[in-house]
């Protein structure tokens, strides 16, 4: 089984799907270019899921990056250079830069405010693009984008498929890297990651920029597929598309966005030729999935084969290193007698309730300590205060001797 899994690497599965689709879809009466759209939207949804599935950030403004990148690529093609590869690169870099600026602003708020802010920025950009007719073409869209190379639809499809696969492989590697692991830890328990000394805000900003770049790449690829740009790319409905795709395919599954985008695009193409009220069907489908299979199609498949689990990362763990680096690092950085954690005059109170008064504590490397208290409250508060979880502690000094934990000093 594990041998089969190794052969069926998710990127390989995606490659086969992208290769087959342009030939399979016309048999069902759909255009072959729909396959290219599926590849692009897979990447779009993957960029979105980098925030949702991996980092735990719910963005309702993914289209802000998709749309601005498609405009950036389109405008570059019309005004600067006819070389589509350079334009696609420009669109991607532009989206990443925008992600850096917006992320720095939006990530100042957490939870639901974050989601609402992403939505609001998308709307703001949509209004600007829609009204600024001289620059963006407004309602008529930006026309005049050309594709002098890869002129046939099939050639462009395979170019897009190759780019998407490379990007997917990059995402696969990133989510398995230490950086990606920290993102997933933030999703599961933000406070604990913060207490371990990671700068959560910077990691989230990193994920935000990465997601913006991936989504921007998808948007730039679309510009050269349809050879025009419309403000609809920026609308909040368009930000909802990757949400739907990811839910339909499976949030906690690496290939969820792929299956989701196939279902979404093929079904909407087929249904829209039958009835104008196909959104009624889609709304019901989405509600049904959330109630019955919140992990989407991937969840159904895994339940059928009898192993319901997440597939965001590979199942096997990397081999354990022969020696643990960190343990030796502490030994070399601090002499055994020096304390690694010093708490001086720590006071913490909630209104009139004092939970810690004038606590002094020294912890040395390799020693065991016991905290005694009448209730669990005081001990937990003391631990939390010592690692800087609360910033409102009246006065305390925490000195840390190990280099890796020095970032606590800021708190």
């Amino acid at each position, binding site marked *: 089984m594990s041998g089969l899994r190794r052969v069926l690497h998710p990127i390989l599965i995606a490659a086969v799907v992208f290769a087959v689709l342009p030939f399979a879809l016309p048999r069902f009466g759909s255009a072959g270019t729909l396959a290219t759209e599926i590849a692009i939207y897979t990447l779009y949804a993957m960029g979105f899921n980098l925030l949702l599935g991996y980092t735990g950030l*719910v963005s309702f403004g993914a289209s802000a990056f998709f749309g601005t990148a498609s405009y950036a690529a389109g405008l570059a093609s019309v005004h600067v250079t006819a070389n589509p590869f350079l334009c696609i690169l420009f669109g991607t870099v532009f989206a990443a830069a925008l992600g850096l600026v917006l992320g720095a*602003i939006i990530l*100042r*708020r*957490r*939870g*639901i*405010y974050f*989601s*609402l*802010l992403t*939505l*609001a*920025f998308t*709307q*703001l950009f949509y*209004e*600007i693009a829609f*009204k600024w007719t001289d620059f963006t073409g407004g309602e008529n869209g930006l026309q005049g984008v050309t594709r002098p190379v890869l002129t046939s639809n099939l050639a462009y499809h395979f170019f897009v498929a190759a780019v998407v696969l490379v990007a997917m492989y990059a995402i696969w590697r990133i989510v398995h890297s230490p950086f990606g692991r920290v993102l997933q830890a933030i999703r599961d328990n933000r406070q604990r990651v913060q207490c371990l000394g990671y700068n959560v805000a910077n990691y989230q900003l990193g994920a935000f920029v990465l997601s913006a770049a991936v989504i921007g790449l998808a948007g730039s690829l679309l510009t050269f597929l349809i050879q025009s740009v419309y403000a609809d790319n920026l609308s*909040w409905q368009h930000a*909802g598309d990757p*949400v739907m795709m990811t*839910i339909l395919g499976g*949030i906690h599954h690496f290939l969820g966005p792929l299956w989701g985008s196939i279902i979404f695009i093929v079904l909407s193409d087929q249904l829209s030729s039958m009835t104008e*009220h196909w*959104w*009624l069907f*889609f*709304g*019901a489908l*989405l*509600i049904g999935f*959330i*109630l019955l299979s*919140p992990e989407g199609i991937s969840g159904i498949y895994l339940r059928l084969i009898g192993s319901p689990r997440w597939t965001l990362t590979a199942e096997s763990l990397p081999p354990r290193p022969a020696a643990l680096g960190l343990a030796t690092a502490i030994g070399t950085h601090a002499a055994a007698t020096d304390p690694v954690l010093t708490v001086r005059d720590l006071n913490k109170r909630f209104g009139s309730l004092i939970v810690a008064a004038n606590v002094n504590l020294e912890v040395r490397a390799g020693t065991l300590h016991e905290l005694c208290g009448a209730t669990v409250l005081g001990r937990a508060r003391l631990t939390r205060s010592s690692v800087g979880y609360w910033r409102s502690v009246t006065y305390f000094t925490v000195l840390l001797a190990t280099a890796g934990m020095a970032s606590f000093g800021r708190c």
Partner: protein
Amino acid sequence: MAELIVSQIVNGLVLGFLYVLIAIGLSIIFGMLGVVNFAHGVFFALGAYFALSLRDTVGPWAIVLAPIFVGAAGMLIESSLLRPLYSKEPLLGLFMTFGIALFLEELIRTVWGAGGRPFDPPGMLSGFIIWGPVLVTKYRLFVLVLTAAILFALWLFLQRTRYGRIIRAGSRDAEMVSMLGINLPRVFTFVFGLGTALAGAAGVLAAPLWSVVPSMAEGAIMPAFVVVTIGGLGSFGGAVVSGLLVGVSVALTIQFWPAASSAVMYALMVLVLLLRPRGLLGESWERFE
């Protein structure tokens, strides 16, 4: 010039009070259920469409009945579709309201058609009132007074009654409230009904001011999101202040820079966020962060 500004400010206050009505409903639902109701705009539109259909049979009573029907629909939806999700991943509730929004908006399109429907204010409220330099339609003044009255009644309900206390306490800590012997599922259903009924009432009142089209849902939900973000979720005063601020800003921009009229509230929100990340009157509630 000065009278123009004053007139637009009055129009802006009317708009602002409607925004407040929508945003307060969104805010109390979020406070209690922990779900951002993406379908809130559709309930707003549903209010207008119910009034449209009821008007022929019950006449002016439609203004009372339509919000009640919207609230009933909301309670039905909450108990059938949202309740099974409370014990699961919190995100699912959010996605569920998103699905409900897509479904209901298309349902409106299917039942009432995609085109706009005219909705005239009742005869006794048509015409203008000229008051010194200020010129306002009677209907706008009626909306202004009525929404202010509804908001005041709601404030009294939340602050002075036993049920209001349950809702305010539940917003802070729903689990604790249920441990005190309150039937929480029933409170959830009631709060969802109340919130959607408020959206429905705003929809009825807005019907003669805006055109009754399926996309009016979007025209309501976006300002409501902006208002709660600027004002701070869970803050009654914050919602009122930011709602009126947004309403007046939009009305003034419509007059002086029409192209920017729909972008201005988002710009305002970014500005507030940069200067005061917590929102105007927002408190730091751990549940919302």
